[in-house]
């Protein structure tokens, strides 16, 4: 059949992907609010858990690396250095891990009602961001106590760092999340990536320690990692202004940060592309 005029007709289930998520942001907001409300339901400490976890993690690393391995005496204000890197990686890890599982977790809905499925990884990332905010407030508070006076570029850098992490996490979540629908191997693989992520970016140590050992081409790869750029932007924004010029910024930080943003954007597009290729099978494979 070749209908004369099908202009007002739509093909059900063929949305505009991430654009539809933006169009239906009210639903996105409700999904995020739901996750946030439900998260610590039934626990006595409730939202305190979102402080307890990073603080414990911080104390363990501080004791092992700061005290035992004496980084505390070689890196000025090491606690701030450590914490600002940790919360960056935590934001990424939580968004990526939950985003990858989000489609499987919402199988009941996906199998019954059509809605832009990109909604789920995006919502997971925003939930991770909501969880990140109290940690950022703690960091901000500590920084202010030790006399943090950031410049405008510092603040812009922090915002760029967040944008890199969010775009990168959404892209990777769509990529691995859509594969995870058919092959649950993906979520285990993602856990592995997350395990490694903390160590292949300068969270616990300084980038100069890497530079002194590895060949230059490895250093280029190391710096092209969007997480490295985001962590260094956080260091430059939060930690560096609290020290006496202790920050030996990596060369071309601005260029690498823009490159990182580019890589994150490409990842986002790639994630969307793969997601759309696999999406038609979601409802029947879950």
């Amino acid at each position: 059949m070749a209908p004369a005029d099908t202009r007002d007709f739509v093909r059900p289930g063929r949305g505009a992907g991430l654009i539809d998520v933006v169009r239906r942001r009210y639903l996105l907001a409700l999904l995020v609010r739901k996750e946030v409300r439900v998260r610590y339901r039934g626990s006595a400490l409730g939202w305190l858990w979102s402080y307890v976890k990073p603080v414990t993690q911080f104390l363990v690393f501080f004791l092992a690396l700061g005290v035992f391995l004496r980084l505390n005496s070689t890196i000025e204000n090491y606690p701030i250095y450590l914490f600002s890197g940790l919360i960056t990686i935590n934001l990424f890890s939580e968004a990526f891990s939950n985003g990858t599982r989000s489609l499987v977790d919402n199988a009941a809905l996906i199998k019954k009602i059509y809605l832009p499925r990109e909604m789920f990884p995006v919502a997971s990332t925003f939930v991770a961001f909501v969880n990140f905010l109290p940690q950022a407030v703690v960091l901000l508070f500590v920084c202010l106590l030790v006399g943090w006076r950031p410049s405008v570029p510092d603040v812009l850098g922090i915002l760029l760092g967040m944008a890199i992490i969010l775009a990168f996490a959404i892209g990777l979540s769509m990529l691995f999340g859509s594969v995870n629908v058919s092959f649950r191997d993906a979520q285990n693989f993602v856990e592995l990536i997350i395990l490694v992520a903390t160590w292949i970016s300068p969270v616990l140590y300084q980038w100069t320690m890497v530079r002194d050992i590895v060949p230059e081409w490895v250093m280029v790869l190391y710096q092209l990692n969007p997480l490295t750029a985001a962590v260094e932007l956080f260091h430059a924004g939060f930690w560096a202004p609290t020290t006496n010029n202790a920050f030996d910024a990596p060369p071309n930080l601005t260029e690498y940060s823009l490159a990182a943003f580019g890589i994150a954007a490409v990842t986002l597009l790639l994630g969307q592309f793969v997601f759309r290729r696999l999406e038609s099978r979601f409802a029947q494979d879950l």
Partner: protein
Amino acid sequence: MQGIDGAAIIVSGVGKRFLLRHTHSLKETFIAAIRRKKIASTFEALDGVDFVINAGESVALLGFNGSGKSTLLKLISGVYQPDRGEILTRGRVAGLIEVGAGFHPDLSGRENIYLNAAILGMSQKEIDDRFDEIVAFSEIEKFIDTEVKHYSSGMFLRLAFSVAIHTEVDILLVDEILSVGDEPFQHKCLAKIRELHERGKTLVVVSHDLDMVSSICDRGILIRDGRLEFDGPSKDAVAHMRG
């Protein structure tokens, strides 16, 4: 075939094949491939189905279990994609496919109304405007701020159905949900569905209650083994089905 001027749903040459995969991890797939074992088998759920539903019609999709009628409804709602052919819809579509799919037990009735109505495609303003009507229809005013997990199953279904039936749509897809609640509530639901039909909404209903669907719907489309077997007045379709 009818023209498309007044059409709300066009189904042309639609085929849907399910791939039944026998492996569930990369390792299994890899081993199966090496051993040249079958990784998957296929099942033809729908095969070359054609029909046009005009705006304002009420149509029952009939068929025995496994005939493919629910698959067809999921294709119209966009949950599934056809492998062959094409489906086109005009206007807003809402699927009452399994009521309450988006409900969360830890949220209150009020929060669930907003969440579900938004899932079904309503805007905040539309929900605000209809909120009181939704609550009144469900008859659970007193418990609206109680968490849904404390509801009885009847209360839960009433609320879920009430949200779905009040969505602002042109085409309403109803799958086997008219069996909700007790008898008085069922009558109320049927009355509401008839009212929507009178207001010019397009209805597509799937149910095993043949007498009920033939009373709501004017037209019946009988699906057997994934093919369209009969398309005509609903009473005739039911008679044909009962053989």
